């Protein structure tokens, strides 16, 4: 990594003409028969305008015109993401996903008290705030052999359930909707017709003509002010926008309502965990919020009644606003039910335990694996030993060469940044092009997230999920294959939001019942004192984040963290190619997606956003074993 003078040596191989493809030929089938998608399938009809020069002269990075289109930054996601795609004949033929930021969190955790780990790990992500805390306490509890009390199980389910509902609604309205909703078209809407549309799809209270007139006026004032703020330079007027003006106005109104709603709903986190984001209430062995029917300072029947109001408010919004809007918008974009599907391999760790047994069979959201879109067979069981991470195309080096995968317990991450050293235009010619590793299950790329959970639950015979899937598909007049698409991912997210929002009240019932029976335990303290720990232990913890399967692994030695690893949803979905050159799931899902105007790559955003990327989660990996190398490297700098 350094020359004789101790200076960093890098391999700048910037491709400025967009023609270099390096070794990134189309992936070949791996030895384990990765089902690769035929790249020529399903570009839907649409204008196939030839790439044109960027019409707006910009002093900044002009996207390379011609074969390569770069989107950097990809916005309306958590964190930093760069996507490069190649386009021919109006459709994407190849794609590269780059995570351009990392922090080295696992290295920071080395040597720390394992009981503190959740506070650090929680800060992996402030958007899916809470899920890394749950994964972390479960991991340490697994290492130390701790069984949590029932109240702790319920409190964790409630906090995580609220997180799912909150996060999915925000994703739909604030991160994803503007890929489908043309803000400027809403200015042409007739408020009376919008009111008629709203009342035809929902009983939601805010549906009068005057209400929509108010939203329209507000929007008009905003636009006429000339200060477009967050909405400046959007792809407004793009030919791929297809909603009638009234549907656009309806969606804009609910964008604003959801902004208010989310503020209220997430008070569930504040009431149970002190604040959101980053609720501060987890403990190894349980939870820190006291439960006591006779104390005003604890979770008591009065507080549970307040929580019920919030839970109902969430369910109402999901049933009366989110799901009807989703169905309305989807009905205009059904061609997106045949594109953006990707591999069709799905991994769900499952979550929401129904008891404290730690038995994977007793998860309300089931654990399992569906391969090759097969919903007819029972999902395969998950064996965490089959998870490996590759760095062949990531800015790291493995001892023993970059072609072998490593299980998280044995993970190593020696930084090997070979990327450009100056401002650059493309990365797709580079062998290594991302700070994300490439996790694989049994050597297969796996999609994780709402669609994976819904697919696994469906195949597993989950009654409520099946009802909802069948109902949504019927309302859209689509077949089951429609699930495996950009639109299917959006539908799956809405479907599970309904199911989880419904489930919240049952956990409140269980908590109330425990209080009634004076079952007040919130923490198993039998292994709180490090004196009670074995000299050495290993553990793993699994959870589902809104964005997908999340696993942490820990090695504890003499009371301190010796090694800590997290394999997170966006690393699964957004990974670069692996040692077999198989694309990551995003890269694969983009192949075949149509693109009308390469200077305004709206279709890329639609498909990437359908996964709900979370980059801070995905890139934080530095292995303790490489401490030595890192030190040398930093000193050289």
């Amino acid at each position, binding site marked *: 990594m350094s020359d004789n003078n101790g200076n*960093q040596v890098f391999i700048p191989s910037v491709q400025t003409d967009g023609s270099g493809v390096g070794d990134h030929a189309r992936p070949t089938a791996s030895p384990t028969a990765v089902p690769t998608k035929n790249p020529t399938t399903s570009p839907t009809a649409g204008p196939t305008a030839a790439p044109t020069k960027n019409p707006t002269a*910009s002093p*900044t*990075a002009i996207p390379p015109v011609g074969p390569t289109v770069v989107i*950097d*930054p*990809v*916005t*309306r*996601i958590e*964190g930093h993401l760069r996507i490069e795609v190649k386009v021919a004949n109006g459709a994407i033929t190849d794609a590269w996903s780059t995570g*351009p*930021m*990392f922090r*080295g969190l696992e290295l920071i955790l080395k040597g720390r*008290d394992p009981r*503190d780990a959740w506070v*650090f790990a929680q800060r992996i992500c*402030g*958007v899916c705030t809470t899920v890394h805390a749950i994964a972390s306490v479960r991991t340490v509890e697994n290492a130390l052999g701790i069984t949590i009390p029932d109240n702790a199980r319920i409190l964790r389910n409630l906090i995580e359930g609220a997180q799912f509902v909150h996060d999915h609604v925000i994703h739909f309205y604030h991160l994803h909707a*503007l890929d489908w909703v043309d803000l400027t078209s809403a200015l042409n809407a007739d408020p009376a017709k919008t009111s008629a549309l709203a009342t035809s799809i929902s009983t939601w209270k805010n549906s009068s003509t005057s209400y929509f007139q108010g939203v329209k006026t*507000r929007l008009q004032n905003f636009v006429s*002010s*000339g*200060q*477009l*703020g*967050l*909405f*400046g*330079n959007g*792809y407004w007027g793009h030919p791929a926008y297809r909603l009638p003006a009234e549907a656009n106005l309806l969606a804009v109104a609910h964008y604003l309502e959801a*902004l*208010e709603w989310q*503020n*209220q709903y*997430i*008070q569930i*986190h*504040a009431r149970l965990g002190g604040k959101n984001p*980053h609720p501060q*209430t987890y*403990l190894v062995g349980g939870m820190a*919020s*006291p439960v006591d029917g006779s*104390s005003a*300072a*604890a979770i008591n029947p009065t507080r549970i009644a307040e929580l019920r109001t919030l839970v109902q408010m969430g369910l109402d919004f999901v049933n009366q606003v989110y799901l009807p809007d989703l169905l309305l918008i989807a009905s205009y974009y059904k061609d997106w039910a045949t594109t953006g599907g990707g591999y069709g391999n799905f991994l769900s760790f499952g979550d929401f335990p129904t008891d404290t047994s730690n038995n994977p069979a007793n998860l309300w959201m089931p654990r399992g694996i569906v391969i090759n879109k097969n919903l007819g067979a029972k999902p395969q069981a998950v064996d965490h030993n089959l998870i490996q991470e590759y760095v062949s195309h990531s800015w790291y080096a493995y001892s023993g060469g970059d072609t072998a995968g490593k299980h998280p317990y044995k993970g190593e991450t020696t*930084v090997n*940044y070979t990327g450009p*050293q100056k401002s650059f235009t493309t990365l797709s010619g580079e062998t290594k092009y991302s700070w994300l590793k490439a996790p694989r299950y049994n050597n297969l790329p796996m999609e994780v997230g709402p669609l994976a959970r819904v697919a696994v639950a469906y195949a597993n015979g989950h009654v409520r999920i099946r009802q909802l899937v069948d109902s949504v598909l019927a309302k859209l007049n689509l077949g089951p294959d429609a699930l495996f698409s950009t639109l299917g991912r959006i539908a799956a997210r809405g479907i599970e939001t309904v199911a989880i929002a419904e489930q919240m009240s049952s956990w409140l019932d269980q908590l109330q019942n425990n209080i009634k029976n004076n079952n*007040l*335990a*919130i*923490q198993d303290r039998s292994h709180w004192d490090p004196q009670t720990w074995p000299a050495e232990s290993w553990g793993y913890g699994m959870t589902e984040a809104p964005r997908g399967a999340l696993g942490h692994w820990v090695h504890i030695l003499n009371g301190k963290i010796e090694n800590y690893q997290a394999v997170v949803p966006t690393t699964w979905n957004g990974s670069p190619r692996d040692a077999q050159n198989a694309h990551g799931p995003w890269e694969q899902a983009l192949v075949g997606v149509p693109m009308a105007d390469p200077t305004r*790559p709206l279709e890329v*955003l639609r498909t990437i956003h359908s996964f709900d990327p979370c980059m801070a989660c995905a890139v934080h990996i*530095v292995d303790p074993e490489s401490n030595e190398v*890192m030190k040398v490297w930093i000193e050289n*700098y």
Partner: protein
Amino acid sequence: MKNEQTILQELASRGVSRRQFMGYCGMLAAALALPVSATDVIAQSLATTARVPVIWLEFQDCTGDTESFLRATQRTDPAITTAQDPSLTSLVLDVLSIDYHETLMSAAGFQAEKSRLDSITNNRGKYIAVVEGSIPTALNGYCCVIGGKTALSIAQEVTSGAMMTIAFGACAWDGGLAAASPNPTGAKGVKDAVPGLANLVNIPGCPANAVNLVATIVYYLTYKKLPAADSYGRPNFAYGRTVHSQCPRRERDEAQYFGDSIHRAGGCLKELGCRGPVTHNNCPTVKWNGGTCWPVEAGHGCIGCTNPSFWDTQTPFYGRTV
């Protein structure tokens, strides 16, 4: 820019009454620890101020401070406002023109960069830069690259033309989590990555509280100067007192373990590791999520997240400090 609207006009178009507007101004005056008379001064200022351009930069972050910003539900006197009234969040999105914010903006790719550069060019000396997340300096900064540019180069470019820069959250203040030992990426806060920056305000916390962000901006717009601050550049109105000195539990018996009878009854959490006695912040008074709660009230000790290098100086979290 044409037809600049003042904040009061903007709010009026939203159906926010003058009475409600005065309520918000009063709330902000209270958060700023100003006398009641300041309410009119703030209101007069905001009513005649055009929407202020903001460039919000995210670097080595978890987006938690953005999420905190979006949870600014602080409401005024319930007699004035109802649940149907806009919360501070949507007001803020109305009174600020957020020209660049990667998590929220509609534009992507080079169009997003254009939004940033246009705002810098058109509003030089008139925009607020908000920084979230730390800035890596190892590897020539290539641990955080946006649009092919390093975080450091973007931070220098944006802050140099700002009328005020706000380091929002622990990471932007002193490097925060990424800078915790052994700081693998050479992460720094704004004050160290871009030294000598004029008009820098630090609002630490993990995350920081949006009320303190809004109050700082409103103070600056009203009085044309930064609020009084301590030696760390933290505004005194928010960081002038210890958490413990404002804590309703401070005189109570001390819980010995989580879930014991004293803990259930709302006892002091010092024995369980609470950092309230050594931490300066206004959590106990402003609280979180619209004044709903704060960590100690919910039963877990303060983790001291506004202290310098808190991930190293305040850990392990569960040992008694005082």
